[in-house]
């Protein structure tokens, strides 16, 4: 029973790690370090006569804070640096435990009496924490965690996690606060790791450094990789395999006459290799079972737009200057976008079209000049505040949120409608406000799917979309944010003439419904058909601005495109 209870505590730590690795896609290689913080923290605090439950709580909170700090440091970077930081942390904690016996009790470890008892003189209660009690406590924790993960994954948090693991850059462009979510996820993972460690320490009554070597981190990592992406049962199967490992290893060790610890390492290595090799086939096998909510019919009542169409332009760029090193990409550009118009931005390659669009979207900060949304300056260097203010863009290249079904990909864009804080928590406890939020999200998604003509494709695998549909999916995600200014970067690239016609109709429809569309495009036929206004950029300056007809007749534009005609 002691072993079983210990395995359940390990599963608690594994669920924590699964949140980071298999749900949010963050390569955390140091869960063992957080488990160690929980175990040694509890043992040390309890040895200094801190009441047991308070000791556990302090250790768990400390690990959570440590996880948050790790996340804070590594969240701004690519995922690989998080792997390096956490792998370094796993070895740092282990090395420190080995080198400082005062901290860890040396190779013998720290011991405390078992079974522990919880007494409350005021209530006159005394609970003996025998292995059965531990198994029940840990079992309840595991079941609760699994249920929470299942429920949370179906709600707003699930959307955020999917966005984190499949396309952080894209998620950022859709207004998901990527870095904040990453920090929160790592902190939660660390706290759960520490909780598992604390439980084991109290259960076993002995905490020795060798049990918390980086091998533990690797074992937990492989355990959460077993089930593939975002499965609640994955960690359970993984920990089951890990739990079977010592006995198997010991019998192999005695059969082959090698050291038991080495045999465990051999089996962990074999397990890691097997899991890596089987990852792709397993995810293919599980693919048909992806659940999908329905996006039937836009609920216009729930989609009420509180924004009023005032006189101020949706978006104004004034004398904007942008420099990439020594290159002046934009040199005093003025530009505005009004509700109900398609404003096309054209110009030769390298003229600054995409840069202007990125400035408008808030991802490039100008060195000079101002950007205003509805007449008001918008702060921030990331896209998220801009999206909340009603400006969303598509990326120039076709980016996908992994193999998330089309409808869910669009719903990630609609996530920004959850204006009240703790949307995930409110969903978890089924608060009425969460149901309302959900209705708004579904409505926004349905509207975006309908307006882009993708309504029939909501359940489709993104791999099944043709090039044009993939482009439209980009537009749909931006529209789903509820943005009144939609910035579209070369949407027609790779489209056939018929698909361009369809795209033109959709862009026109967006403008006619009261949105403003800023269109960067090379195809002058498309521009001539859909644009109300055209601005021509050349070498970072505005060359001309006016109706498509006027622009076509402008000799300066002809010169910029075709060179100076011979006289």
């Amino acid at each position, binding site marked *: 029973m002691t072993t079983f209870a210990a395995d359940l505590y390990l599963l608690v730590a594994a669920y924590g790690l699964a949140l980071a*690795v298999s749900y949010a*896609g963050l*390569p955390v*290689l140091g869960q063992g370090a957080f488990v160690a913080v929980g175990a040694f923290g509890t043992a040390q605090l309890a040895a200094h006569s801190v009441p047991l439950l308070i000791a556990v709580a302090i250790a768990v909170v400390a690990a959570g804070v440590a996880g948050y*700090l*790790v996340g*804070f*440091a*590594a969240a*701004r*970077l*690519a*995922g*690989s*640096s998080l*792997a*390096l*930081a956490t*792998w*370094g*942390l796993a*070895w*740092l904690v282990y*090395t*420190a435990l080995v*080198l*400082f016996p005062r901290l860890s009790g040396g190779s013998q470890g720290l011991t405390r009496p078992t079974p522990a008892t919880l007494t409350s003189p005021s209530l006159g209660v005394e609970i003996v924490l025998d292995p059965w009690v531990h198994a029940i406590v840990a079992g309840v924790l595991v079941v609760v965690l699994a249920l929470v993960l299942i429920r949370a994954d179906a709600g707003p948090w699930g959307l955020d996690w999917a966005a984190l693991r499949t*396309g952080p*850059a894209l998620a950022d462009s859709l207004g998901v606060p990527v870095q904040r979510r990453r920090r929160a996820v790592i902190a939660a993972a660390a706290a759960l790791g520490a909780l598992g460690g604390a439980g084991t320490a109290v259960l076993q009554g002995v905490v020795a450094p060798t049990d918390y070597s*980086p091998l533990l981190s*690797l074992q937990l*990592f*492989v355990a959460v*990789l077993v089930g593939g992406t975002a499965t609640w049962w994955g960690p359970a199967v993984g920990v089951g395999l890990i739990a079977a490992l010592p006995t198997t290893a010991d019998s192999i060790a005695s059969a082959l006459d*090698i*050291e038991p610890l*080495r045999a465990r*390492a*051999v089996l*962990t*290595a074999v397990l*890691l*290799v097997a*899991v*890596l090799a089987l*990852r792709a086939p397993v995810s293919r096998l599980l693919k048909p079972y992806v659940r999908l909510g329905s996006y039937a019919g836009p609920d216009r009542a729930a989609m009420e737009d509180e924004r009023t169409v005032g006189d101020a332009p949706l978006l104004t760029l004034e004398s904007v200057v942008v420099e*990439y090193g020594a290159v002046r*990409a934009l040199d005093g550009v003025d530009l505005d976008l009004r509700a109900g118009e398609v404003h096309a931005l054209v110009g030769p390659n390298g003229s600054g079209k995409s840069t202007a669009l990125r400035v408008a979207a808030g991802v490039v900060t100008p060195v000079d000049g101002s950007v205003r949304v509805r007449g008001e300056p918008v702060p921030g260097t990331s896209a998220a505040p801009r999206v909340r203010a009603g400006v969303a863009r598509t*990326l*120039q*290249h*076709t*980016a*996908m949120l*992994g*193999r998330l079904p089309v409808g869910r990909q669009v719903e990630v864009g609609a996530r920004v409608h959850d204006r009240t804080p703790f949307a995930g928590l409110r969903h978890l406890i089924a608060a009425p406000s969460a149901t309302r939020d959900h209705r708004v999200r579904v409505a926004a998604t349905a509207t975006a799917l309908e307006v882009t003509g993708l309504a029939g494709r909501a359940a489709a695998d993104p791999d099944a979309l043709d090039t044009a549909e993939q482009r439209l999916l980009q537009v749909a995600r931006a529209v789903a944010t509820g943005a009144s200014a939609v910035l579209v970067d070369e949407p027609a690239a790779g489209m056939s003439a018929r698909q361009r016609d369809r795209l033109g109709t959709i862009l026109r429809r967006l403008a006619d419904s009261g949105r403003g569309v800023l269109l960067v495009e090379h195809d002058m036929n498309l521009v001539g058909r859909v644009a109300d206004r055209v601005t021509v950029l050349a070498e970072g300056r505005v060359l001309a601005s006016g109706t498509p007809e006027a622009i076509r007749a402008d000799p300066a534009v002809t010169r910029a495109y075709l060179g100076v005609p011979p006289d």
Partner: protein
Amino acid sequence: MTGGQLLQAVLTGLSLGAIYGLVAIGFSLVWSLTRVLPFAHGDLVVGGALFAVLAVVGTAPVAISPSVGRSVALVVLTLCFAVVLSVATYAVAVRPFLDRGKHGEDVLGWVAGGVTAGLVIRTALGVALPAAAYAVPDPLHFDAFTSSGSVTLPGGGSVHVRVFPVIAVGLLAAVAVDWFLVRSHLGRAMRSVADDPDAAVLCGVPVERAVVAAFALAGLLAGVAALLVAPAQPIGVDDGVVLGLAGAAAALLGRLGSPHGAVAGGLALGVAQQLVQVAPSLGAAWSELVPLTVLVVVVAARPGGLRAPRQVPAE
């Protein structure tokens, strides 16, 4: 602390740092061509050294001076094993997870692949060499420079004589790599891939060959590091990980991607570690924590360390 002790710490630190530098150049090189962090890199050092010892001396090595034949065999095999392990790690554990079309690279995949490769190397060695650490023979015979094996410094300290050739070999190897990258055809191809793989493909650079060459060169440098570090003190199967992480810290200190920076970072890290060791209130235990602490802090503080410059205008 006397001046002699300080000099002793600095010299010992420089020799340790030269080894870190060699590991760091390889780490940095692999990163700049592939944007992959080689998690098994440190294990190549110990793998090269101990597989060669296994092949030449057997499972019960002793640190006696080897014969000329054995010395040559040890040197050649150490370098070969390190190169082969490095390229094999790339082919088996990293390559399959890169470049998956529009779904992008699989970070979880290559991170797991790298740590798995490291664990496989450690495990394979651990089965054959079960003790905590082994004293292995020195095929380069650095101890034979003086009869006592140590040199007395002005001011009272003394250092192991091998400190000087280790610093020299470490720095010479770094200069050779620099020369290779700047002068040779293959080196230039590697630098072009590091600058911009897409443009390199368009110019007809064989990108895949350049990447394999980077892993091979990283392995070779790990092999040189193995020749320098293994005989200095008893070496354990698991020592490679911390060495690799120290190399990572050095590479990050020197702005990831720059060979000069990697060497400078390595030297700084080695000296810092030795200074902590001789510092009155700190000592050996604290000194062992220096590389790992620096790694975690540097990744956290990010002195431009992990940023890919080419990502600025592109998206």
